[in-house]
């Protein structure tokens, strides 16, 4: 019982941190419309490596839901969920495969996030014209993934194991 409460509190903290990063990111100007670094994913990558995929899924989905309700609309919810679900799936599988380091996993997550959003956009708009954005989104997803992976990797190795061990 105590352990469950502590995990809930820890995940709540992580969700809050991810939401603050969403807010901070809104001040960073974007080179091309629609391209973002995805700062909250530093938290998601950290939770995925330290607490496992169910915890990462919980934090990610609650974060997307709350940010959309507070700052977005129904459509941003759909795009956000599609990106979050696919990138989580890809990152979880690649992490299990032990094939890439954190950076590679995060790059694959970033690219699949952008690909999922293009697919949803194509379905919503009923047009295939927007696939022409895919190369730019792949480059953006890769670069963002590198940054997020490096930052997430630092968090994973530098935050002492005891922080989480004590909590759990």
């Amino acid at each position: 019982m105590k352990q469950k409460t502590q995990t809930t509190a820890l995940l709540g903290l992580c969700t809050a941190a991810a939401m603050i990063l969403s807010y901070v990111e809104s001040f960073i100007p974007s080179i091309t419309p629609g391209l973002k670094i995805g700062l909250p994913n530093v938290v998601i990558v950290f939770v995925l490596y330290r607490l496992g995929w169910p915890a990462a899924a919980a934090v990610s989905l609650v974060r997307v839901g709350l940010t959309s309700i507070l700052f977005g609309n129904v459509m941003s919810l759909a795009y956000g969920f599609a990106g979050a679900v696919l990138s989580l799936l890809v990152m979880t599988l690649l992490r299990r495969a032990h094939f890439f380091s954190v950076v590679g996993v995060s790059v694959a997550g970033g690219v699949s996030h952008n690909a999922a959003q293009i697919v949803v956009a194509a379905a919503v708009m009923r047009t295939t014209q927007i696939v022409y954005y895919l190369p730019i989104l792949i480059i953006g997803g890769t670069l963002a993934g590198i940054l997020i992976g490096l930052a997430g990797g630092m968090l994973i190795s530098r935050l002492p194991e005891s922080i989480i061990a004590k909590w759990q």
Partner: protein
Amino acid sequence: MPAKCKVRRDLLLIFILLLAAGATLCLTLLFRLPGDWVVVEVDGEEWGRYALDKGASIHIETEAGGYNVLEIADGCASVIEASCPDKLCVHQHRISHSDETIVCLPNRVVVSVVSGRE
């Protein structure tokens, strides 16, 4: 698995992704044709078609109540006004070559340039 090996695979993945996307981008830029028409689609249906060489200002209204203002000038098309809050379409570049698009996600408006007698 040694960490060094993983980092090498990371770099390979990054290299492949950037190369594939970069090559596709370069090819589309190299082989693009000058456009002749501007096609406006709303909700997947063709809404209007305008010649790129004639200046015009077009008020696009959607059934959902949103609007976008499309401007054609000097052989380029751009969205200069929109009802949506994010205004991403207004900040997109002017388009003039075939298959270039301006997308307004909230209003489901796609403005694209086509070439030839299509």
